[in-house]
Every structure is written in structure tokens, then in C-alpha cells.
């Protein structure tokens, strides 16, 4: 980590210094590491240079991968399905090519993999809960990748690991062959390789407990098919220890106030992984959206926005934060400033023009970047809120209805609300209750989406209409809207128009 080199391209103030030991070992030399293998045990922290922007960007990409992996787990996807689901996600966010591929990107991919692991390791070492979650997901990711490693490369990687195992010699094998077979449940019918290795039994406590190894004086004779499991276990064990270590150094890291906010943001993103908003969430280029089409489009809204829309129609009014949340969402789906003003003016039908102008107009224009300071104008106003923003902001108080209803409503009220908007599938409602009970709000929302768009999703998958990464977990209300809109209009929209793209970077 520790990256203080003299790389002239990186402004020293923007250099990310990850290694907590930096201050202790001031003289160490920092060099770019070479990555001989696709897989990495992440034993040593990165020593090269990296900008703060890259630090964060890579961290967010990895976070996206871990979040998708966790979502698979929350949905109890079996391993094969998880694998299928994760393939495009990994391809898109954390591609790792084999050495054999001779891709020119290999070195950069591996560097990104290495650095992003370490940034998240630091970000998530703060609490026992985060550590445990991170270790679990990283281990799963490691396992997933190891399984798909090229055979020869996997062998080379495993051989390179600092693990103390010894191949059982032919002589020893002949001596114990029957016992080896009986102990390890060897089966030639299954095509088991006739090969064993030995380790201290403490390395394989689970196999010992299940009597699936041969034990001789403290050595466990393990069948080669268990080797992958052992590597994964060892990875997990080391990572847990590493996280404990990082936790102890974390207080010192905080002194580096350039890194602190990024680490904080990354760890926050674990609540619900963050997704930025992209212009392409708008459907403005596919359909004309104006003030009077919102009612019809609201059928595609996620519950957080549909709820605001219904409240607005019911009371002809919405409180400040609800207005802000909804305005930004409408901006995101492609409603122009002019139409947005018309929309609000018509919706607040109990207000006089004068009152509307004096109290509400400015805020709408501000949201669109039409007024305000230069920065606001340059950035074209505020960014539509992501699920993470809605899930981490303060809870609404009386009379307010902004936020994410999966989080802000009691389970009973939530189910009533869902039924009011026409969702009656009992199995679905049961799943939603379970999700929110476990505070997996975005999973509940995705569950509703997947069920209400079941047939369309199936069609898209069966006919390979979209890249699979376009069906990943929804983390932004505008993504929810656009994906739902496109699914319900399959065939009406030209295939080239499909650009449901959740960006991996913060747009701010």
C-alpha cells in the first residue's frame, strides 16, 4: 500500500495509500507487482500507484459484483443458477482473463482485481458485521472464479500457494491403497483420480469430522478432489485474519482524511449497493413524455415513486422531500423542465398560480439546474436518488411519504399498499415480508419486479434479446422504471434502443 512513489502523473494529494504499515516502514520500496496467475490470494497489499479516483471507481465495481453475489444468496439461487447469473456481471465489472488468452488487458484486469479487493478490505474492516459479510462474499467470489479457472492455470496457481501439502508417493499409496480408498470414499465409477496428498489434520477439520480422510499419526490423507475446498477454506481463513488485522490499523488510516470519505462511502454502499443515475435511464428518445402521460406511465414506477404519485393525486399536494424525490425521478425518466412545471402546477390544483410561483417553482427549476450556482447549473441540477440514498436517509416523519416504502412502512402496511396497487400473489407477498424482516429492502423490491415482469423476463432470456447483465439487480428507481417500461413494450421498441445501463461510477 503504501504508495508514495514519485509517479509524476498522480498528484500526491490524490494518491491513495492503502497500506496501514506505511508509517512504520518508511523505507520500503514500492513497485508495480506482477501477476503470474489469474487468481489471487491477496496476501500482499498492492504496492503500486493509483489515483483516488481509480481507487474509488475500482472499489465500486467490485462492490457491484459482491452485491450481486449476495443478492443471489438472498434469493437462494442454487450454485448453477448463481454461476449463470454472475457470468455477465463479472464479465462487465470485474473481468479476469486467463493467462492463455494473452489479452493485452490481463495486467490491468489483475491490477484492478488486486487493488479493488484491498480497498474494500479496508472499507469493510470497521465492524465485525461488515468483516464477516465481506469475507463471506469474497470467499464465494474466489470459489466461483477458481472453478472456472483454466485447468492448467488452476493447477499452477494452487501449486504456487504457500500451503504445506505433500503429495502421497506411489510407494506410500501402494502401501495404503485400500485404506485410502475406504477412507476418502474413492469411487472409480465417479472417475475419481487415484491421487492423494497429505496435510496436518488441523487443515481439514470438516473432512475429519465427516471421516472422509485417512488419518495416520496426525496427518490427514486427502483425496485431490478436496483440494479446491481446502484452497477456498484457506483463502477464507487468511482473509478473516487479514480483516482483523486491518481493523486494528483502521484508526490510523483515518488520519488520511483523503481516503476516509471514500472508505466511508464504500462501506455505506454495502447497505444497498450504490448505483449512479445515467442519462440513458430516460426513455425520452423512445416515447414522448409530457405532463399528461405521467398517470399512464406510473404503472411502470417502482413502489417508492408510485406511492408518491398516489399521494399526490389523493391530496393534490406533496411535502418538500417527497416533491424533491419525485421531481428528480421524473427528470430522470425524461420529463423536460417545462413539462415538469406543468405537471406540478396541474397536480397542485388547490393552489393559486401566485402561491405556486412563489413557493414551488424555484425548487423545481433548481432541481433541473435551471437556477442556482454555477456548479448546480453545470451539473444540470441534482441527480435522481438511488436506492442507497433512499435506504440510508432519515426516515420520514408524520405526513411525509418520501423514502423507500419497503423500509419506511410496517410489514402489514406495506403488504396493504402492495395489494392496493394490484399485487396479490400470496407467495410474492410472503417473500416480501421475509425480505423486509431481514432488512433486505432492495431485494424485496427486486422480487416484486421479477414477479410482475416474469413472462417478459423469460422471453428476453429465452430469446437472448438482451445481454444478461441488463437483468441484474435493480439499485435505482429509474432503472426500475426503464427496465419495466422496456419489458412491457418488448417488440415495440427497436432492439437498438435498448440501453438500460446502470453505470458503475458516481455521476457526481
Amino acid at each position, binding site marked *: 500500500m503504501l504508495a508514495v512513489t514519485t509517479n509524476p502523473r498522480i498528484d500526491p494529494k490524490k494518491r491513495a495509500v492503502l497500506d496501514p504499515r506505511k508509517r512504520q516502514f518508511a523505507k520500503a520500496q514500492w513497485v508495480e507487482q506482477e501477476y503470474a496467475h489469474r487468481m489471487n490470494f491477496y496476501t500482499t497489499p498492492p504496492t503500486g500507484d493509483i489515483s483516488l479516483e481509480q481507487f474509488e471507481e475500482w472499489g465500486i465495481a467490485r462492490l457491484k459484483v459482491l452485491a450481486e453475489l449476495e443478492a443471489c444468496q438472498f434469493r437462494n439461487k442454487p450454485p448453477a443458477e448463481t454461476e449463470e447469473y454472475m457470468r455477465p456481471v463479472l464479465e462487465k465489472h470485474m473481468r479476469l482473463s486467463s493467462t492463455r488468452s494473452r489479452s493485452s488487458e490481463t495486467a490491468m484486469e489483475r491490477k484492478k482485481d488486486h487493488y479493488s479487493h484491498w480497498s474494500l478490505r479496508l472499507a469493510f474492516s470497521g465492524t465485525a458485521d461488515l468483516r464477516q459479510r465481506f469475507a463471506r462474499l469474497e470467499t464465494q467470489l474466489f470459489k466461483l472464479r477458481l472453478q472456472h479457472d483454466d485447468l492448467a492455470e488452476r493447477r499452477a496457481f494452487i501449486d504456487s500457494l504457500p500451503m504445506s501439502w505433500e503429495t502421497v508417493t506411489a510407494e506410500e499409496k501402494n502401501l495404503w491403497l485400500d485404506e485410502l480408498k475406504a477412507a476418502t470414499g474413492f469411487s472409480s465409477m465417479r472417475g475419481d483420480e487415484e491421487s492423494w496428498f497429505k496435510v496436518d489434520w488441523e487443515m481439514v477439520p470438516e473432512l*475429519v*469430522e465427516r*471421516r472422509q480422510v485417512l488419518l*495416520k499419526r496426525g*496427518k490427514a490423507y486427502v483425496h485431490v478432489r478436496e483440494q479446491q475446498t481446502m484452497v477456498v477454506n484457506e483463502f477464507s481463513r487468511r482473509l478473516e485474519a487479514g480483516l482483523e488485522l486491518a481493523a486494528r490499523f483502521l484508526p490510523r488510516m483515518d488520519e488520511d482524511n483523503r481516503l476516509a470519505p471514500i472508505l466511508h462511502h464504500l462501506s455505506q454502499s454495502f447497505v444497498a449497493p450504490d448505483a449512479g443515475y445515467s442519462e440513458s435511464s430516460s426513455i425520452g428518445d423512445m416515447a414522448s413524455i409530457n405532463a399528461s402521460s405521467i398517470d399512464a406511465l406510473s404503472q411502470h414506477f417502482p413502489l417508492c415513486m408510485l406511492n408518491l404519485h398516489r399521494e399526490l393525486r389523493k391530496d393534490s399536494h406533496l411535502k418538500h422531500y417527497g416533491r424533491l424525490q419525485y421531481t428528480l425521478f421524473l427528470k430522470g425518466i425524461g420529463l423536460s423542465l417545462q413539462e415538469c412545471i406543468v405537471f406540478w402546477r396541474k397536480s397542485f390544483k388547490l393552489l393559486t398560480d401566485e402561491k405556486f410561483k412563489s413557493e414551488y417553482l424555484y425548487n423545481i427549476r433548481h432541481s433541473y439546474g435551471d437556477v442556482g450556482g454555477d456548479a448546480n447549473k453545470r451539473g444540470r441540477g441534482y441527480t435522481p436518488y438511488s436506492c442507497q440514498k433512499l435506504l440510508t436517509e432519515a426516515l420520514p416523519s408524520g405526513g411525509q411519504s418520501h423514502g423507500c416504502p419497503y423500509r419506511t412502512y410496517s410489514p402489514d402496511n406495506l403488504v396493504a399498499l402492495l395489494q392496493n396497487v394490484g399485487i396479490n400473489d400470496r407467495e410474492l407477498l410472503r417473500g416480501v415480508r421475509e425480505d423486509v424482516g431481514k432488512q433486505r429492502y432492495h431485494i424485496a423490491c427486486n422480487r416484486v419486479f421479477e414477479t410482475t415482469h416474469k413472462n417478459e423476463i423469460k422471453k428476453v432470456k429465452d430469446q437472448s434479446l438482451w445481454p444478461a447483465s441488463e437483468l441484474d439487480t435493480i439499485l435505482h428507481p429509474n432503472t426500475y422504471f426503464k427496465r419495466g417500461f422496456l419489458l412491457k413494450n418488448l417488440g415495440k421498441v427497436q432492439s437498438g434502443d435498448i440501453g438500460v445501463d446502470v453505470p458503475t461510477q458516481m455521476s457526481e
Partner: protein
Amino acid sequence: MPHAVSPESSQELPALNSEAEVLPDAPPTTSLDTDAQSSDVEEPESKQTNAAPAKLDELFDDDDDDEFSSSVQTRADDSSQPAPQAAPKAQYSEPETLRQFYQRLFPFRPLFQWLNHAASPQPDFQNREFAFVLPNDAYIRYQSFASADLFRKQCLQMTPTRFEIGPQYSMNPRERKTMRSASSFRPVMKELVFDIDMTDYDPIRTCCSGASICHKCWRFIVMAVKVVDGALREDFGFQHILWVYSGRRGAHAWISDKRAREMDDAKRKSIAGYLELLRGSEHGKKGLGIRRPLHPHIDRSLKILNPHFQTDVLADQDPWQSSEQAEKLLNLLPDKTLTAALQKKWDSAPNRSSNQKWADIDTVAEAGNLSTLTTKQLVDAKQDIRLEYTYPRLDAEVSKKLNHLLKSPFVIHPGTGRVCVPIDVRRLDDFDPFEVPTVTQLLQEIDDWDAKNASMSEEERAKVLDWQKTGLKPYVEYFRGHVATLLKEEGRGKREREEAGAGGDPMEF
């Protein structure tokens, strides 16, 4: 109320109501400790324990749980000897007897070395938890001692009816409440322990039940020790294994190898699982669900157990003699045609012994009475039955936790007065639980020896220590030998580590 409990009233389980009343008996401690200690007082028979950090009943050795409820019936069988069960609270539980025992007989020095792994006190002993059961049945946890002498002193002062040994902690257990963070107080090391208790054999033994034992059912303990000891040595490579008679109806194992002491709960659990074959709920069901070919450990165990099955089970226990008992056997055979044919045979010849019935299985099967089972499967089923009737029944929970307390070797079993002596596994078959000395016997032996050798010079007499005058001598000598071997190995290991450590990088972390 609960002062000076008279021996006769002990059955009422006098409970300690006021902490203050115990404290005057407590040894002088640091001022901080006074508070901590009072809350360590527990009532061992009570399930409602508040002060202990874990579920207390899980931490105790169960051997003594029904100590005072033991009006257990033994079968009216003249071959069954009276269990080593004693009259209502006898002389051996009186504080004065206990004091004499601790003063004159208890091997404090070797016990200290055994737990300390060195000659001079180190944290292995100093940070080790001891739990005392006092004559008034108060249970005091988190005792620790800076030296063997201080330990001995407190035993003389408090005259515990027994004490238990727990793990070494990350800090002195007496000071655990002085630390701001409770999380830094954690167990770090303890011998791996096993507990085999006869009560787990009640479903298969016919001679006795509950707290009683006889020579016949003691054989189950013998079988269990052979199998477990074999696996610990051959499979896990442990060498420093001490087997201890639990004083009435079972045995404990203490494994002191460094590698065993340092195991975390997960590794303890894995060894327990490796050795465990019969889990409580699975008893008496058809088949044990074990893989074929047999795992080498099971295969070896079966070879050890086969002869015991013939003699100790079929002949001595005769477990399927009556027709109700025979039903148990039939239930274990997964072939309806076979069991029907056997049932018919035994109905017409009701007096067949278990030995004959066991042989009948093959005879009847060979006569063509198999429907669902193949011959190979019948062999497997019979193996399963042999294992069910011979394989060790471990109280696995005791082994799984680093912080589980277990009764110390050489204390007196409060129900029998017998000393919990070590068992020499090399002469396991010779060990007779009924010949284990009681404390009253031992004290008498000292007096007898002194009387017999009254003519000896003062100087000569002083050379003979009290324990050497008694039947405890061979047990103490065996224990000292065991400890000496352990310390020798420990010293060697330590030197090697120091030498290896000298070249290491001190900056490495």
C-alpha cells in the same frame, strides 16, 4: 441457614442463600477479588444460574448429577455385584476427612506440573480456572493460583468435596472483571478431554442401570477406552493421554499434547465427530447409515470390539434373552421375511440365548429367508448391530468446548468415597473399579502403617511419605511417570521453538 451441614442432612441439598456466609471461608485474596468471587458462587444442582457466563449445566461433568437421587434399582441377579455405591453421606465427605486427604495424600505437585507443563509456574497453570464444590454444595468458579502451594493452601482451607479443571484463560480468571473489555477474557488452552459415562449404556446393558455398575457392564468402559485410545494415538498421533476413573461409573480422558491443548472449538468438535458413531436419537434404529467400505477407523474399532461382542455382550449381557428383548434385535434387521422367520423360530423355542439367537440370523438367512437384503447387506446390518452394542458412547459435548470444566483426577467421588485414580491403559483389562481405594481406607492405611512401623526410627519414618504408605501409591507413581514424560517432551519442544525463533524476523506481524 446453611452452615455446618451435618452429614445426615446432605440429602436436602442445602443451598447457599447468602453470599456473605461463604466469604469468611474464602482464602485471602486481593481486594478487587472479593466482589468477583462472591458472584462466582453457584448452586451446582440448580439450573437457574445467573452469574455464570455460559450455560452452567453444559460446562459440568454430568457424572455426579444424580449423586443424591440414586436409589437406583439393580437387577436381582446374583452375578451382579453391588455397585460401588456407598451409604448416605459417610465419613469421606466430612471436612476433616477431606482436609486430611488434601494434606497427606493429594498429589498437588505432579498435578501442578501436569497442568503447568513446566517446573516453575507459568500462565498454563496460573491463568487456569479451577472450580470448587464446597462441603455446603456451593459452587465457586474462576479460582486460580499463582503456585502449587497456594492451590494446596486453599484446598486445605476450603476442603472442597471436589474440584474441576477448566482452561487457561487469556488473563488471570480472578482478574477478569477488572478489565474494561469482557471480550479480552477468553479461554486459550486446555487439554482435550473425553467423558464416557455408563448411563449412556442403559439402552443396551441388562445388568444395571443409572448410577450402578458391576464388573459386567464395566466392560463397556473397557471397550470404549480401547477404541478411543487407539484412535487418539494411531490416527491423531497423540501420546500424552491420561485415562482417569471417574470414581463411580465412567472414565475421563485428558490429552495433554501441545497440539491437542491448543485446539479451538471447531477442531475439538471435529475430533468428537470423527469418534462419534452413535448419536442419541439414532439408537435402536435400523442401520447406522455408515459408508461401506468401512472407514479404517471404524474397521479397526470393529476388529477390537468383535471379541468383546462375543464375550461381554452376547454371553454376559445376554441382551436379547427374553422375547421383548429379542424384539429389539428384530427391529434392527431390515428384512421382513428374515425377521418373520426368526420370530417364528424363537416363538417355538423361547429359551434360546442371545448367542444362539445371533447365530440363528445366519442359519435362517441361509435357509432362504431373505427378501430385500442381499447377503452382503446382511453382513453390513450385523456389523451395524455389533457396533451399536459395543462402540463407544461418548458424551461428545464435553469434548467440543475449550471452556468445559471437568472433574480433576485424584479428587474423591462424593457418592462413593473412591479416589478418581488414573487408569493404566497398558493394563486396562486388570483395572477393577471395585478395588479403587476410598479416602477412608487410605487414611486407615496410613495409621496402620504407622502402627506397624512404630519401632522404626523417626528419621527412617520421615523418609516415607504418607501416600507411599497406602494403596494410592501405584496410582500416584503412574501419574508421576506420565507427567515426567510430558514435561520432558515439553522441554524439548520449547528449546526447539526458541532456537527456531531466534532467527525469525521480529518485525514480522
